[in-house]
Every structure is written in C-alpha cells, then in structure tokens.
C-alpha cells in the first residue's frame, strides 16, 4: 500500500542545555492512502506536538517527515505554506473560521489562494456543502450558525482542495454529542466514499472509535497500536477504553 505520510524517527526537545524536556522521542509510523488514523493518549503525552510537526506548523529537533514522498523538513517556510495549502487540510477544535467572511467564502478561501477559476470554486463549494449538509447556511456569517455547523464548515474548508491528508485536531472537542456524531459520520463518509486520508488527534473515545487504527502515545513515545479490523465500532470503543484504563494503571504503578 502507498504511504501518504511517513514519520521517521522524529524527536522534539524543548528548553536549552541542562534543562531539557523531551516532548517526542524517535517516533516512527506511517499512514497509507485511504486510511482513517487516530492518535490518542493522555494529556501531555505529546499529541499536539506531534500533530503540529506533522502538519508542518512546527519543526522537529531531529528526524524526517515525508508527505506524498516529499521530505517536508528540508522545505523553506514559503514552500511549506504553498505545500500546506495544496496538500493538507486542517480541522481545528475551535473551528478557526474567519468572522468577517460568509460560510461560502470561508470554504472558498483555500481554492482562491490556489487561483482556481471562479466557476470551478463555486461548483466545488456547492458540492461539498451539499455533502456535509450546510447548503442552506452558505450565505450566513460564522456568528450566525451553531457550533456543529461551524465545524462542518471548517471540515468543508479542509477538504475543498482534495488534499492528500486531512488533519483533525480535537475537532469534536467543542461539540455536543449529536453534532460530534454528525461530523464524524461525515468524515467517515469522506474516508469511505472518496478514500480521503484522515489523521485525527483526539482524547474522545467516541471519536476514536470511528478510526481504522489508533496510535497510542504516552511520554512522547508510541505505546501501542490498536487496529479495528472487522470489529464493530462498539467493540473497538471497548478496547480503547480498556487500554485507557491500563495506561492509567501503569502511571499509578509508577507512583
């Protein structure tokens, strides 16, 4: 299978000599095309650091990251910016929509940055809005719609460019359970129908249960990998819960 993302011995150290803190220690893994992967772990485990580094917003201290076969570590800042907007899509916990733009314009922004033709932009936006069920609110402003609708708008913006990889940083963190479900189903639908590759960082078991595979990190290292296989979501969620419990026990043992 083809690797969309390859993380190769990535480490991240904070602080200066004598007072160093290791956030990530030689993390290696790979995500293949069409996979829906989750990254879970207790808070402080290094989830967000890992996501920031993979998504090229932050730089690792050592190691390499290949996206679509390109080593993004070697790229300059401007190259990275262009790379991000054509290859990557982002969904953030706090939506990160632009208040002064309508929902339609928010979704269209990445396309207009890529200088796509006006007609093509409108077509793409309508298509995606229909798929995520936000066609009626396209002309509204972010402050006029609900949190769930905002997050679906953010998801639309993330996938509108057909990116190689979609990142979700706790996308359900600020949503109620119904909106969460709606969003996750939309993402799953994208993954299954369009074969979109999705990498989700979450601490929510319910969100994790939608993934094909979950990487568990604690203390900056990959602790365990869970694979859903042919099990039902409920069974998978059960396993995740058990694992979470065990991680808690380990920490208790250490004390």
């Amino acid at each position, binding site marked *: 299978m083809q690797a969309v993302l390859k993380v190769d011995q990535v480490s991240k150290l904070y602080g200066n000599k004598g007072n160093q803190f290791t956030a990530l220690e030689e993390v290696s893994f790979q995500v293949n095309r069409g996979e829906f992967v989750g990254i879970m772990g207790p808070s402080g485990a290094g989830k967000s650091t890992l996501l920031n580094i993979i*998504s090229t*917003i932050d730089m690792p201290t050592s190691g390499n990251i290949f996206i679509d076969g390109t080593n993004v570590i070697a790229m300059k*800042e*401007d190259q*990275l*910016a*262009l*790379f*991000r*907007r*054509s290859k*990557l899509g*982002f969904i*953030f916990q706090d939506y*990160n*929509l*632009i*208040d*002064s*733009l309508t929902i339609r*314009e928010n979704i*269209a*922004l*990445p*396309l*207009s*940055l890529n*200088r*796509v033709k*006006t007609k093509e*932009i*409108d077509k793409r936006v309508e298509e995606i809005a229909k798929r995520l069920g936000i066609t009626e609110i396209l002309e509204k*402003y972010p*402050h006029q719609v609900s949190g769930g609708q905002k997050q679906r708008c953010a998801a639309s*913006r993330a996938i509108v460019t057909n990116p190689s990889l979609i990142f979700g940083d706790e996308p359900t963190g600020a949503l109620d359970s119904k909106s969460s479900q709606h969003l996750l189903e939309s993402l799953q639908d994208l993954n299954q129908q369009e074969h979109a590759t999705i990498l989700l960082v979450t601490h929510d078991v319910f969100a994790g249960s939608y993934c094909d595979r979950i990487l568990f990190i604690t203390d900056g290292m990959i602790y365990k990998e869970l694979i859903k296989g042919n099990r039902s979501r409920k069974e998978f969620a059960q396993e995740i819960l058990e694992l979470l419990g065990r991680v808690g026990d380990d920490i208790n043992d250490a004390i």
Partner: protein
Amino acid sequence: MTLFNLVTRNMKRNAKNYLLYFISLIFCIAIYYTFVSLQYNSQVLKQSQLSGSMSYAFSFSSWLIILFVAVFAVYSNSFFTRKRKQEVGLYSLLGVRRKQIGMMLFFENMFLSLGALLIGIAGGTLFSKLALTYLAYLMNLTITVSFEVPLQAVINTVLIFICLSLFTSVQSYLLIYRFKLIDLFKADQAGEKAPKGSLIMALISVILIGSAYYLSVNFMKFPDPIIALYIIGATVLGTYIFFHFFMVNYLKRARNNKKSIYKGLNMITKGQLLYRIKGHATSLATIAVLCTLTLCAIGTMATIYYNVGIKTKEMNPYSFSYEKKSDEFAGKVEQIFEKHSDEHKIVESNELPFLSVAGRFDLPEEHYLQFNGKDGYKLLSESKYNSNREKQGLQPIELNSDEMHMIFPYANESQWGSIKNQSILLTKGTKEAPVTKLRLVGIASERMSNLFFPILVVDDNVFEESKKIGTPYTIENVTINNQDNSLALSNEMKELTELENVAMNDYYSSYQLLKESSGLMIFIGGFIGLVFILATGSILYFKQLTEAHHDKKLYAIISKIGTTKRERKSAISKQVLFIFALPLGVGIIHSLFALNTMSMLFDMSITIPVLVTIVIFILIYTGYYFLTVRFYTKIVNEKQ
C-alpha cells in the same frame, strides 16, 4: 517588587508601542516651544515691520497647537489604556489593589510625558535657532541669528504640558475604575454585523459633493457668500455621508464581484474592510475633512508666498518711479544711485512726459475719478503712449481730437460700463471756464509706472494745445538689478523724496512688506500644518495597529491554512492603503477645487505652490503608511 520597579519594567517592555506616541509628543512639544520662544524672541521682532501682529500671530497659533496636541494626546492615551485592559485585569485578579494599579498607570504615563517634555524642550531649543534662521529667510530679513533661550518660553511650555500630562495620567488612573473585572478580561467581542449600505444616501452624498464642486468651479458667475457657505457645508456633509454609505455600497459591490474576490487574499482584504467600516467611517471622514482644511490653508499660504514677487511686479513694474521735479533734484537722485552702483546697476530707465491739467468729469463729486484728479489730471500724448505699446508688441490706438483713453491700475470691465462715454472738461485752473471737452472711449489697467494716478491719453494736437493750460509733470522710471534686496538704496530714496515732497513709489518696500507678512504666514501655517499631518497620521497608525491586534487570530488561521509571508504582507498593504489613501485622496480632490476657486478670485497662479504642498503631504503620509504596514505585519506574525 516595588511599584517603581513595576513601572520601569512595564515601560521597557512596552517601549515599542510607546515609541511613535513618544516621538509625536516630543515633536509637538518642540514645535510648541519654538512658537512660544519666537513669541518672546527679541531678534526678529526688532527687524520686522510687523512686530506687533507677529507676536500676536505666534501666541494665537501656539494655542491652536495646544488644542490639537491635547486632542491627540487624549486620543492616543485612550488607545494605550484600552490595549492594556487585559494586563490590568490580570493584576486585579492577582490581588493588586485597584488604587495601586491606578497609581502604576498614572506614573507610567507621567514619566513618559515628562520625558517627552524634557527632550521636547531641549530639541525645541536647538531647533528654534534653525527655525528663526528659516523664518528670517522666508521674511527676506537679513539678520544673523544668535542663540537665545527665553526663560518665559520654557516656563510657559513646562506649565502647559504638565497640565496636559496630569490630565492624561488621571485618565489612565481612572481606567481601572471604569471597567469591571469581567470586562477587562473579555477581549473585544467579535461578531459585528456588516453595515447596511443605502443606495439613496450614497446618491445624496454624490449629489452634495458634486453640486459643491460644480458651484466652486463656476463661483465667478455667482460670487455670493451664501453660495460659498453652501459649498463648504455640502462638501463636509457630503464627505461624512460618503464615508458612511457610499463606501459601504462600494465595498459590498466589490464583495459580490466573485471574480475579484476569489483571487488570493482579496477576500480577506475586502471582507475586513467592510467588517470594520462602520467603526472607521466617522474617523476617516473627519481625517478627510482635516486633510482638506490643512491642504487649503497651507496651499493658500504657499500660493500667496509664491506670488509675492509676481504680484509686486505687476503693481510695481519698475524699481523706482518718481516725479522728476527739477534738474537739481535729478542730480541728487543720480548721486544716490551712483553711491549704490556696486550692488545695484541701473538696467533701464525711461521718462514719461505728462501734462498736469485741472478738469472735472460729468460725475458725482464723490466718484473716485473726481477724487483722483484733485491735483490735476495727468495727460499723455497718443504718440508717446503708442510708442510704449509698440515696445510691448501691442497694436497702437487711434484717437480723434475729442476722444481720450484712460489708463488706471484698478480699472476692470465692470467699472467700464458705468464710465464709458463720460466726458471731462479740461480747465485752466480749477474754477476757469472749460477749454477742451474730451469723451472717454477706452480704458486699460496696464501699469506705466509704479504710481497710482489715472492717466488720460489724448490726441497729439490736443496735448500740444493743453500745454497752454497745464504744467509739465515728468515721471522717471528706473529699473535696477537685485531689486529684491535694495533696502539701503530704497531707504535713501524714501528719505530724499519725503524731504523734497515728491511722489515716489518703489518696488522694494511693497515687496518686503508682502514678503514679511506672507513669510510669517507660511512659516506658522507650515508648522501648524505639520502638527496636523503628524497627528492625523498617528491617529490612523494607532487605529490600524489596534486592528492588527484584533486580526492576530485571523492571520494565524490563514497562516496555518497555507499562505506565504509575502501574500499576507500584500493583503495587509492593500487593506492599510485603502485606509490611508482614501481620506487623503478625498482631501486632495476637495482642496483642489477650493484652491482653484481661490486662484480665480485672487488671480494667482497655484500650480507650483499647490503641487509642492500636496507632494509634501503625500510624502509624509506615505512614511506613515509604510510604518503602519511594517508594524501591522510584525504584530500579526507574532506567535500567540
């Protein structure tokens, strides 16, 4: 940590934010000090012909500066305090007493103001000598300026600015009491609604401004003070409506144009502008009106200053014109010219042989033509006049024996209607019976000498015959080189002619008087204008930087989505350009119409002085623009 430590640390940390305010404040204080010190300065006052009005002008304009600086200081200070709302909230949460926080803010502002005051006065002292030299140059005074520190000026400046600092410091102190803790923590709420533009109001603004423009261009057709008032009122009102409605309409239209919106970051630029326009409209309109005012004032002064030479030359075509009373007198004059021949050579001289003849017009007694002929009307022969015209390349005139042609400096077309075909009866002596009757057939406002009496051109035969009833009256016109600086020569000529009771008009005296008054005007106007420009520029700068702080999140988002630094900077440049260029552009266009009317009214050439004024204005604003874009970019690129 003591309060003092906290204050100094805060100031160090906020130095970058304070810098522009600090510099602007220093500048204003330096200019104010310069003005007050000029008011008390003995050197220029002694030299100038208008010392009394001069010190009055300086004291008036220093009050104008104070007024403006006060508004500016209060505005900027409220900008800073608002920006530090959250910091203040944090102190409050940590349990620092309100009074202590208030004192901290009070002392911060006090130190800042006192620092600016000290540097401002020091700078002003150094600068005032330069300013004085420049003023002397503008006023065409030849003095060597010595260094002088008038104590009264220092005391005056210190007192005024300490009062102002106390006021702004108390304003800072009260900040903590004005907000509730929860308000202090709430960042400025997002979710302002995009304003509704009204097409009708947009049209009204265009009609108001358009009609004002139309009337100002055609002002000469109906020169009425009510019309002038309408022009001013309609322009100001139209400008405010323009910024509130026309702009919104324009931006909305621009936003609906998907072709241009869906191009790079255009969406952000236009979206942000429309989103913020409501808060901006009033201040942008005010700045546009202020720009217009400043440009008109400085433009007018520059025009007058620039036209001094031209206007004096029009009125006084020769360096000297005097009555050649006798050969003995002519000899004395020759001696004076001889004495100054090193500095001033006689370039040209001509003689006009007039005949002074008594007479009266068929006009009421109080008419200016009757009045002007009290000492006898000055007759000139047709052939002499025509030879003069020939030199200027003009067509000769032809007169019959019962006709005359009048040359009068203030004559114009509208007067001509009322005196056309009037007759004059020339008499021998005032009460004698009339000898000749002449009809007025033409009028011209050309200048044949520097003197201001009306000249009657008559047929050569009439002129010969009139010699019997009149007395010869010869005017000598002399042109010298370097006439702009002929103070000594001019003074001696004045002395001699006054002593001999002879009519004389020189170019230099008129030139110097005009030069001094207009030089003083442009000096004061220029500096006040500078204060205006600096203050409005700073206000725009602060406004934009406030926005930059609000836009941090926006730029963080689009940076994550994937935009290069260059793209972001270009979006910022466009947005800031709109804010800077619009009021300036509107102000320039307004003032061009006003200045055009002014030039028509006073018949002065405006192109060069107005162009220079506008270019200087644009240059200073451009400086502010680049400064703003730089700091805006810096703020939004900071890590949160």
